[in-house]
């Protein structure tokens, strides 16, 4: 009982405050229990069953055994890796480049910032429509502007097994505005005194970039790296819309979550889809922890222990 006593507020005022706390957070707490914790536990259980909306049968680890032998599972992992491992670093590097340029006391800053952010507003289906048209192999603007002047016949993008993932990279690049805005705010928080001191010491602008800018905003870079990575691993809407929910051509854009969705809501294999979901969760947690651990020593924090 003494263990419990440690947690029980001593004074009446403290007890009232604790009660108020739980009253205030009750919407989230109820939501967490009913719409997050329960579904998590249920999903963990479903992953051990064969469940098709109507009948549920406990089968132990059979889903995971099937998964180990499932070629499409590995394939969708590979497609997702291709999309993520190039798309995320490319997006972060370009967003940083634009932010650094915008931070050079450029005139009309807010105007440019608005323009670069605009594509991030129209996410979702409209973006899928737009890029299907821009990257159209015959009549698209992209091939006309980029490949025709070189005298090369442009790729077939979303209609080509080789080029469909690069097409998604390009599409992703278009939406870097959100990340860019975050970097810009981070850059504006770097004290100018640091740059002035470095300049007096004779540091070139390249040295100042690598030795001041990058370390000072490294926490922001780490944050965006993790959130963009988690987002990219769960990329769904555009791939679903563009490939008509099939992940074509010939499964070349069968991203992991798309495969999971097909299992769940097209073939109604709720058990198998849940197993896939837990594998994804494990991948996300592992990647996040590894990144945090590996980059912890590289990232610079102003206040120790923050």
């Amino acid at each position, binding site marked *: 009982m003494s263990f419990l006593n440690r947690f029980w507020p001593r004074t009446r005022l403290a007890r009232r405050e604790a009660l*108020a706390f739980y009253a205030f957070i009750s*919407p989230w707490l109820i939501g967490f229990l009913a719409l997050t914790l329960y579904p998590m536990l249920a999903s963990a259980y479903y992953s051990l069953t064969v469940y098709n909306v109507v009948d549920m049968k406990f089968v132990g680890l059979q889903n995971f055994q099937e998964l180990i032998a499932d070629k499409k599972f590995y394939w969708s992992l590979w497609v997702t890796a291709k999309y993520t491992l190039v798309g995320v670093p490319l997006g972060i590097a370009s967003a940083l480049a*634009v932010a650094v340029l915008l931070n050079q006391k450029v005139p009309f800053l807010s105007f440019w910032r*608005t323009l670069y952010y605009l594509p991030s*507003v129209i996410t979702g*289906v409209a973006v899928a429509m737009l890029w299907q048209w821009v990257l*159209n192999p015959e*009549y698209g603007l992209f091939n006309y502007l980029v490949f025709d002047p070189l005298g090369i016949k442009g790729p077939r993008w979303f209609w080509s097994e080789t080029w469909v993932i690069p097409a998604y990279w390009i599409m992703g690049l278009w939406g870097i505005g959100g990340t860019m805005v975050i970097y810009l705010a981070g850059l504006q928080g770097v004290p100018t005194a640091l740059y002035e001191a470095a300049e007096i010491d004779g540091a070139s602008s390249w040295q100042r970039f690598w030795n001041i800018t990058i370390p000072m905003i490294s926490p922001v870079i780490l944050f965006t790296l993790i959130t963009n990575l*988690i987002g990219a691993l769960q990329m769904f809407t555009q791939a679903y819309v563009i490939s008509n929910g099939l992940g074509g051509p010939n499964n070349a854009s069968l991203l992991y979550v798309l495969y999971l969705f097909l299992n769940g809501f097209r073939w109604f294999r709720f058990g198998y889809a849940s197993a896939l979901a837990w594998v994804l969760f494990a991948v996300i947690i592992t990647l996040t922890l590894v990144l945090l651990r590996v980059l912890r020593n590289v990232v610079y924090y102003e206040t120790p222990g923050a």
Partner: protein
Amino acid sequence: MTQRAIAARQVKIGAQPRLWRSKKFLERGTQAMSTILIACGALVVLVPVIWMFSTSLKTRFNVTSMPPEFIPRESVHVPINGQDLFLYDVNIDGKTLVLAAVKLDPEKSEFVDPNDPSKVYYAPADQATKHQLVWAHWENYREAWTFASTPFGIYMKNTVIYALVAVFGELLSCSLVAYGFARLRAPGKNLLFALLLGTMMLPWAVVMIPSYVLFTRYIPDFLNKLLDTKIKLADTWWPLMAPKFFGSAYLIFLVRQFYMGIHKDYDDAARIDGCGFFQTWWRIIVPMSRPVLTAMAILSFQWHWNDYMGPLIYLSSTNKLPLSVGLANFSEAYGGTPWHLMMAASLIAVGPLILIFFALNRYFIQGVVVSGVKG
């Protein structure tokens, strides 16, 4: 020139660094270069949107014309003597006239003046090019909007209601919950906050299927047994709207960060004046947090306006769909790929969002910044 004059000159040169090495020049140069690069980048960002708009104003035929043109133009034909004749720009004796072609012939084509068909001109065919008029087909928007299989009016209404309900629910729940986490002390708070942050990492794929089962089977079954009714939640907006009143981890975190920045003296003053916790929140904290609440409302509005997966899972009747799903269904419903109409429909779908963005873009960016940097 004396020794002294030469020395003085050298001193003068030494004192003034060369123009191209002066600090001011370098700074201006970098600034100009950056501005040029930024402008080029902005053009790249903008061109697809302009292209989308331009395509939405073309005819089905003109959409696929090569080379692509940004300004929608097309050749025109006029009725002359009961015949539809195309207009040409014809070079006759060094002057360019707009004439209607009666007969095209490599040697001797026959043209007439469209205003006075009795005036006949002859010229070789290579002296004539089709006359093109700038012609914006605004009616494409009407055609997309009124296409019977995809009632965009209804989609728009559904989307607006969904986004507004979601904004209202999340504003209410998130600002309440955030106040608890930012201000009140209670046992177990740190653990709960860690849980809140942890849920941000949880993929929606994990909770998607059990939530679907919960909302389409368990909850209606329970309610029906309890109330002896025949409620169905599949193909209704309930499973999509109801969860919004239970807060979203990301937005709670966002608002909490802002509340943390409000000085605690305000709370204490309110407490001394006799405000309870609830009143302190409603009368003191909420009015002071207008910027973050606006930013939050906008983020929430934007997400739900664009939400695709949720409606895709729960809704099936045509008249219940939001714009996102309706737009995705459009080309299949229409048959083929009518790019001009698809672009018009896409612009209809995102138009309101873009207008709101330009009106309130300060808050859009603020929301992203607050959530990104302070995280």
